[in-house]
């Protein structure tokens, strides 16, 4: 990479600011009340699976910077129908152990011989695949329930506005 000797300090700062912004969602003007959305987030138990600003459970994705990573349209789609927006590497699996136990959890790692899971209680499991009675990859499934039919349109707007305002820690 050539040295950018031809740029002034101000221009370098501007380029850096531009590059740092890439991948981040530009703030939108949204309907709804984020303060009410915060109450809806708490009332519906979202923190039972998500961490936001250090509070909650680390089963699902952290939402502290949800608004910087996801636009309002994507957030709405995820809330209304989570199976439509499953991230590329996310996989929900069901493992049947030799003792007859069935474990459902999120895949953390998998190679040719082993697989590691995390269940809804946050417990880690490590299996040798050859020792499992069955291993189902539940493609298209997610432990997150749809909220489109649980929340009113106004509540959904409030919640989306609240999540979109989560831009990460300063």
């Amino acid at each position: 990479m050539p040295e950018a000797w031809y740029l002034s300090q101000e221009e370098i700062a501007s380029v850096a600011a531009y590059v740092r912004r890439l991948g981040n969602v530009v703030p939108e003007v949204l309907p709804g009340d984020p303060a009410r959305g915060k109450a809806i987030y708490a009332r519906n138990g979202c923190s039972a699976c998500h961490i936001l600003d250090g509070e909650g459970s680390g089963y699902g994705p952290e939402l502290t910077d949800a608004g910087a990573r996801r636009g309002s349209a994507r957030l709405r789609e995820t809330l209304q129908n989570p199976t439509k927006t499953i991230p590329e590497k996310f996989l929900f699996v069901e493992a049947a152990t030799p003792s007859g136990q069935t474990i459902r959890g999120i895949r953390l790692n998998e190679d040719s011989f082993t697989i590691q899971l995390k269940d809804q209680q946050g417990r880690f499991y490590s299996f040798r695949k050859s020792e499992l009675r069955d291993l189902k990859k539940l493609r298209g499934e997610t432990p997150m329930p749809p909220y489109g039919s649980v929340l009113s349109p106004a509540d959904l707007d409030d919640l989306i506005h609240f999540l979109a305002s989560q831009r990460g820690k300063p």
Partner: protein
Amino acid sequence: MKRLEQRLWIFLLPLFLLSCPATFAQVPFERIVNADKEPGNWLTYSRDLQGHRFSPLTEINTQNVSQIKVKWAFQFPDDRTEVSPIVIDSVLYITGPNSAAALDGRTGRALWTCRRPIPSDYHSIGFGHTNRGPAVLDDKLFVATLDGHLLALDLKSGAERWSAEVLDYKLGYSMTMAPLAIDGKVVVGVSGGEAGIRGFIDAYDAKTGAQAWRFWTIPGPNEPGHETWSGDAWKTGSGATWVTGAYDPELKLVYWGVGNPGPDWNGDVRPGDNLYTCSFVALDAATGKLRWYFQFSPHDTHDWDATHVPMLSTRKLAAQSANSAPSRTETLFTTCSTAARENSSRASPMPSKPGPRVSTPKAAPFLRRIMSLPKKEISSGPT
């Protein structure tokens, strides 16, 4: 149909939430206090709060240790790490410089990783980029970073729960040691003894990250011990605290070693004993107040840090057979805190120069025996 679906979800949602409870407390303090009951786990830096660093496991022993082979390897991208892993139910929690990971003990696969960028203007002065391990309490993993932050990470996902700014790295401070989790608090020390710092030991509320107390290893003006410094030397007199201490949950005392005075090899600019450098301090866990200290090397000019891991043991000092005092202070120092407390009525007066000195009579019975050792053993240099 939509109304039926809506009703169904309203009915199912509470059931789902019940099946997805908030993270439970995986490692309550009582589990760490009773670490000896869990031989397969390693719940604190020294395995127990008393600093014993002893594993009762026998599968690997002197007969077969030469046959050990690499099963798996995990490497941080950084050049080195000196970590004592925390082990909880087959999961290893390790740290590198400004990084942490949870590893499957069976395969070495990462269950989660976390990395905090090292600022481009950060410099390690007198040591390399390294980290000596994490601490755990309840549902959090605590990690000290080179650039002076104490991070509380979610044990199950690595997400940051809180971050406390312990120090300003631009003043020469840093952190490389493993934090010590005690009852409701996390205790940390600092590096930078060759960078002109004024050392301290800090405690933070484990739930919120709020600072609970700070103990300056160099007393400020009008504080006892300040008279052992001259001029402004106390402001940059070092006294780093870069090795994890020990804790007595019964006495509620934190024990910590304090490093060399600075500049270390030349004491001309800091006449005096330079308390509490090269000392061993016992602090009240609730307040951080000094309860007693022992200085191994007054006015040290040989870099004789006292930052070894304190090892606590309880025994009756009055017994004739008690003769457990180690001979080399740089290697090991054993304090009999409980016995010292119980025998405080038999206190001896403070010793005079040039031997080690004691601030209060509470530790005197044991320390008196230390001081009765041949002087050449007391003043042995570092290995």
